[in-house]
């Protein structure tokens, strides 16, 4: 189970997330259902522990092609489901009100962080919350010391159509065509001085590019897939390669038992979140989280 850490930033007129969660706790299952980007999402379980952590389990009803069941020696077959029944994918999260950080389980088929943001935004009129990705500041500090950049490599999956196009009155058909015409799914750019060269890349250009791409990555934008720089503290120092996306705070917990229903229990997922969050607490307290 992979877990990421996010900082929750409420919008200007939004109540603290803890207050929203408190209100949500009083609502029934049906009242918590919201449609977000065409998906049926709801908070399945929500409670606050004695140590002040909110535990939230979100559910996505999966009306698209679902899993089948099989044995090693038999072909795959489907499940008999009622008309209003379907598969459900869970994503759990732990929110610490005191620090404003949230540990979120990553489930590829479940509720992604962008959808989670939209769900909370939709829950109460006028509410808005940003889930900001977090990074270990240590790499950031090492980057700050670099004065000579020898190479910069980054990969971006360009957003083919965005809100600006909607505001520019681009039709639906043209918006779809723009995506098709864009061609490559990932654009990789590599700038370097080359072997044997004693020069360096323009300092301001590199720093500005890094700043822009890190901001894009932190905005939970899945489009920046690589950001790496080779640099030195001074012209005579050895080169160091810094992966500026690697220090994104994430933990893999692989020892979670799977039950007879082939699911990891909610309790085990909550415990994993707590383990991960405790591991990051020290970094948060020491201000090492960016």
């Amino acid at each position, binding site marked *: 189970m992979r877990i990421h850490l996010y900082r929750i930033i409420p919008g200007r007129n939004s109540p603290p997330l803890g207050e929203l969660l408190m209100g949500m706790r009083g609502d029934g299952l049906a009242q918590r259902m919201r449609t977000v980007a*065409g998906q049926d999402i709801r908070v399945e379980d929500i409670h606050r522990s004695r140590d002040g952590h909110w535990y939230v389990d979100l559910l996505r009803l999966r009306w698209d092609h679902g899993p089948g069941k099989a044995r090693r020696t038999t072909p795959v077959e489907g499940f008999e489901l009622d008309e209003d029944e379907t598969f459900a994918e869970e994503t759990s999260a732990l929110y610490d009100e005191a620090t404003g950080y949230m540990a979120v389980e990553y*489930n590829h088929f479940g509720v992604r962080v962008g959808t989670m943001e939209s769900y909370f935004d939709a829950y109460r009129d006028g509410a808005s919350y940003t889930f900001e990705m977090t990074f270990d500041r240590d790499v950031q500090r090492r980057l700050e010391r670099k004065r000579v950049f020898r190479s910069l490599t980054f990969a971006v999956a360009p957003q083919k159509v965005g*809100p600006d196009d*909607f505001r520019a009155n681009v039709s*639906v058909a043209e918006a779809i065509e723009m*995506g098709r015409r864009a061609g490559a799914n990932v654009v990789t750019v590599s700038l370097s001085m080359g072997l044997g060269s004693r020069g360096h890349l323009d300092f301001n250009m590199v720093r500005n590019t890094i700043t822009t791409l890190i901001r894009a990555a932190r905005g939970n934008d899945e489009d920046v897939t690589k950001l790496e720089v080779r640099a030195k503290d001074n012209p005579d120092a050895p080169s160091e390669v810094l992966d500026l996306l690697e220090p994104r705070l994430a933990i893999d917990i692989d020892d979670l038992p799977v039950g007879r229903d082939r699911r*990891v229990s909610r309790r085990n997922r909550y415990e994993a979140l707590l383990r991960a969050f405790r591991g990051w607490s020290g970094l948060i307290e020491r201000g090492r989280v960016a």
Partner: protein
Amino acid sequence: MRLSFERAYPYVFGVAAGAAWMYYKVPFAADAKELLAAALSMASILTGFLATAKAILISVNDSSVIRDLQRSGHHSVLIGYLSESIIWLFAFSIWNLVGFFMVRGDFYCVAWVTLGTLSAFSFVRVVYALMLVLKHVAPSSPGNGAPVR
């Protein structure tokens, strides 16, 4: 094409067709009942097709093109096109059914042409967009963002 035009053109063409019909006083088909029956069948079939199209749209919900459309705000517009088309085709079906029971005067004929044209263009609008989506959707490959739990 601008979004504002794309949103409006089925209505513009529908009203224009009805106005032209009224202006030129075009007579309704001689064998009206056969026409009504055929139009009713076609509208019903297309309504059913759009219900299937909705399932297709849901099945590609995780594709990059749909994510882009959700991010830009176009996705809700596309869903709106689908809903509008279903509503107008259903309304056209009902109007054809009504035609079997009422005297088909000028009002009925102009409304029939307006509804028929509006339904047809709303159908074309949404099906064109869906075909573009399906052309765009590429199969996922292993190793490229493999699911992690």
